[in-house]
């Protein structure tokens, strides 16, 4: 049996993070009562005209720049015509022949097969095009899963008209794992530059795949199938694995693969036929006469480029080289945009990357994970974290006490200074107050005192420890030692 190579190309739909819809001013907010974020335009009333949301164009251009693409000097909206109740105009405004963005690539890291498992390989996945379009509404069916056979179907146009960006890749992906990694990296990038919140489970990022297999060495592509309904990163890999297996089995048994659209059944973990090529729609695309062409001028593109935040990969390098952070720490910090934003906010106040990273990773992020919160959800500001680090440095509080203060600050939202003064967590630097504890420790540890006096100097550290314990960590260790030595001399 000959060996087969898998060929995958992806079509990704990303919901753009705009406040308002693609062609009207309705809110894109998720979770409103059905049909409340609607107007005459997004419900397709007779006589209405679309008006392009400039922000959506901006975000598409931003994506194009981040993916090393060409921003087309002129692009055109087109109508994709088909009937369905979630599509109020009976056409979707999309882009067809002249998309806003062409060319480009995203570099991903894939495991290097054959080598030891830690080694990784960098690979370029080429982007064919990115175009803009509007989303459809949502249907709810009674008595059936689909509209056919349902007793009653209701439509909610809240989502209708939400701006979408379709990203199409070249058939450069060679395995389901690669597809998953690409999706994860792309999601990360989109989040990072703030164009999409990229949550596959919530549908703000969706992925369809074109997949085929061919004997290794063969140039021409095999018959492809289109796979839909892979609504998580894991399902992208699982769905594609199932489909590759199906293709391989069919080839092995000499069956002919039919060009068709299939969906991944997340319950049975296999793929099922949706419609054949013959049943495919003729969308009768033609240029949208209600809109003018998009011609972004050079100045605007440069303005957008200026707002483009540093991409994750670049950031990671900078964290390692400029701040001297170890790679694993840098990776955690860049993994989420809000975390690295927080980190950099802190750095702006006080240039102490290692201390900040340490406190963020060990304490703040542990707390967030525990409570299932995002760093954006908490009141605790970078200014407060710096305050805490400064208090430790000045010796006002000890590291142990600082941890408790931090937890309290995270939980209550109170500021560090107030918590410290309220709890009395300040270090005891007053000799009189410590004198009492020192005396008591000497009295309660006659054996160690004797050892010290007979010349075993390191024993002093044990006694310091005892004083610290008694003072609940609030004593200043060097002061304690000085007092002990004075008392025992």
């Amino acid at each position, binding site marked *: 049996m000959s060996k087969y190579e898998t060929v995958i190309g992806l079509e990704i739909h990303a919901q753009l993070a705009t406040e308002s819809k693609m062609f009207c001013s309705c809110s894109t907010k998720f979770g409103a009562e059905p049909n409340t974020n609607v107007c005459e335009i997004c419900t397709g009333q007779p006589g209405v005209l679309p008006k392009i949301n400039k922000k959506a164009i901006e975000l598409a251009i931003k994506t194009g720049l981040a993916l090393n693409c060409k921003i087309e000097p002129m692009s055109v909206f087109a109508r994709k015509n088909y009937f369905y109740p979630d599509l109020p105009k009976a056409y979707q405004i999309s882009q067809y022949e002249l998309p806003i963005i062409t060319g480009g690539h995203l570099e991903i890291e894939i495991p290097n097969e054959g080598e030891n498992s830690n080694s990784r390989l960098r690979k370029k996945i080429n982007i064919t095009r990115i175009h803009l379009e509007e989303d459809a509404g949502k249907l709810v069916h009674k008595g059936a899963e689909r509209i056919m056979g349902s007793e009653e179907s209701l439509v909610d146009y809240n989502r209708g008209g939400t701006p979408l960006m379709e990203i199409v890749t070249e058939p450069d992906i060679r395995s389901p794992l690669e597809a998953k990694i690409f999706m994860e990296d792309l999601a990360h990038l989109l989040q990072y530059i703030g164009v999409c919140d990229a949550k596959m489970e919530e549908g703000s990022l969706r992925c369809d795949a074109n997949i085929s297999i061919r004997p290794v060495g063969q140039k021409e592509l095999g018959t492809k199938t289109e796979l839909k309904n892979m609504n998580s990163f894991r399902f992208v890999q699982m769905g594609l694995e199932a489909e590759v297996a199906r293709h391989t089995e069919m080839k092995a048994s000499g069956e002919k693969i039919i060009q068709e659209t299939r969906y991944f059944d997340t319950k049975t973990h296999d793929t099922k036929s949706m419609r054949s090529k013959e049943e495919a729609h003729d969308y009768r*695309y033609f240029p949208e006469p209600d809109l*003018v062409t998009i011609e972004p001028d050079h100045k605007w593109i440069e303005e957008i480029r200026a707002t483009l935040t540093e991409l994750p990969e670049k950031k990671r390098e900078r964290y390692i080289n400029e701040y001297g952070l170890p790679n694993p720490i840098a990776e955690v910090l860049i993994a989420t945009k809000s975390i690295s934003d927080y980190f950099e906010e802190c750095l702006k106040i006080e240039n102490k990357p290692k201390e900040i990273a340490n406190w963020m990773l060990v304490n703040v992020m542990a707390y967030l994970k525990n409570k299932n919160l995002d760093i954006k959800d908490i009141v605790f500001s970078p200014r407060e974290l710096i305050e805490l680090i400064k208090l430790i440095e000045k010796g006002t509080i000890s590291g142990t006490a600082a941890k408790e203060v931090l937890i309290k600050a995270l939980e209550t939202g109170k500021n560090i200074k107030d918590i410290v003064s309220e709890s009395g967590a300040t270090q005891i630097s007053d000799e009189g107050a410590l004198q009492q504890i020192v005396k008591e420790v000497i009295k309660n540890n006659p054996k160690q005192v004797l050892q010290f006096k007979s010349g075993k100097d390191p024993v002093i550290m044990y006694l310091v420890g005892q004083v610290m314990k008694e003072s609940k960590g609030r004593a200043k260790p060097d002061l304690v030692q000085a007092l002990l030595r004075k008392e025992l001399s």
Partner: protein
Amino acid sequence: MNKKPAHELLSLLKNKKVSAVEIVKSTYEQIEKHEKEISAYVTLTKELALKQAKAVDEGKRSGPLAGIPIAVKDNMCTKGILTTCSSKILHNYLPPYNATIVEKLEAAGAITIGKTNLDEFAMGSSTENSAIKTTKNPWNLNCVPGGSSGGSAAAVAADETVLALGSDTGGSIRQPASFCGIVGMKPTYGRVSRYGLVAFASSLDQIGPMTKDVRDCAILLNVLSGYDEKDSTSAKLEAPDYTKALIDDVKNLTVGIIDELMGEGVEGSTKEAIEKAVKLLESKGAKVKKVSLPHLKYSVATYYLIAPAEASSNLGRYDGVKYGLRSKEAKDLITMYKNTRAEGFGPEVKRRILLGTYALSAGYYDAYYLKALKVRTLIKEDFEKAFKDCDVLISPTSPIPAFKIGEKANDPLSMYLSDIATIPVNLAGLPAISIPCGFANGLPIGLQIIGKAFDEETILKAAYTYEQNTNWHKEKAEIR
């Protein structure tokens, strides 16, 4: 009162010689007298109109058209007022919003008399394609008023309103204006907002004035014109005061007579009337020359690919889901679509949807739609060339005067061909006016004056000069 043009009424109102309520009441008296024979209106808004008139008289409603009755074609959305497009499929449709031009009329203080009849979705040249009623020509009740703005044209001609709005995709303002002996102008594409005009063919549709004379046309155009941010295809240009163009002087104008539109198929007295009109302009100092637009002969064919293609997409939304008719025979999604559209659309609309769907289909797109777009560019270039030497171009608005009701109803092709003079203007996106210039067997003849893009002023100047030196616009139909 209702028989006078708006500019006369405005000065009477200003001098308190007449009240807005009196004007509106006399308009409705005329409607009560003649509407049964004319059938110009789909909906009358008498109560609202009287309220608005009262507000004008009390000084609570003002603007450049305060107190002036206007009829709005029933394919323009009026919030809370029935907007049917003369179609069964929208027989019960109450728009949740106002078209931009309706807002502008409101701000101008105009009084809405009612909504006028049209060929269903503005598809037709006789208003016979209305699913609601057949409008009659006030000059001869056995004849059509033209279309698709037949209701508006007949209402103005029968003095059932002072002003009216029409929409023009291939001649739908100018041809009925010509058939009914009134003034009708299609402004440059982009001059007037289309927001709220129920789309037939988006790249061709344009709203415009239908009036008793040229001055009224300029006054109404002043109110309608201007950029609208809701319409991306509206032009970001300052609209001038068109009444300033009303000068009785054509001395420095070069008038081109379109050769292709004066030959075969043009009825005798129509040709004569146009030639006389040209002589008049010449006698007033205009330079006259013949021009040829060789691609004009393809314009009807081009139009009947582009307009139905856009229409087939624009009319997809009438599916029974959201508003309008939903077939009672619907058992599931597919039968809901099929039956709703089968019951809701008339034969002409269906014919054009089929034509357009075909033209856009995979495998036919290049041969039909794309080729039509290319020819459209050639026609545009023909006009550009002609306008290098001419300030305005002239032709008959229609090669024939109003025809008999039913005469062409079963011959769509000959109906289509009667729009030969008006269609090219839409394809080129240019402005054009039709003004009365004579009669043939008691039926009015229209003179079409075409201008350069966004140069409505020169058209108005030429039209005004002609009107000042003739009396055709003062002739009134005797309705019987």
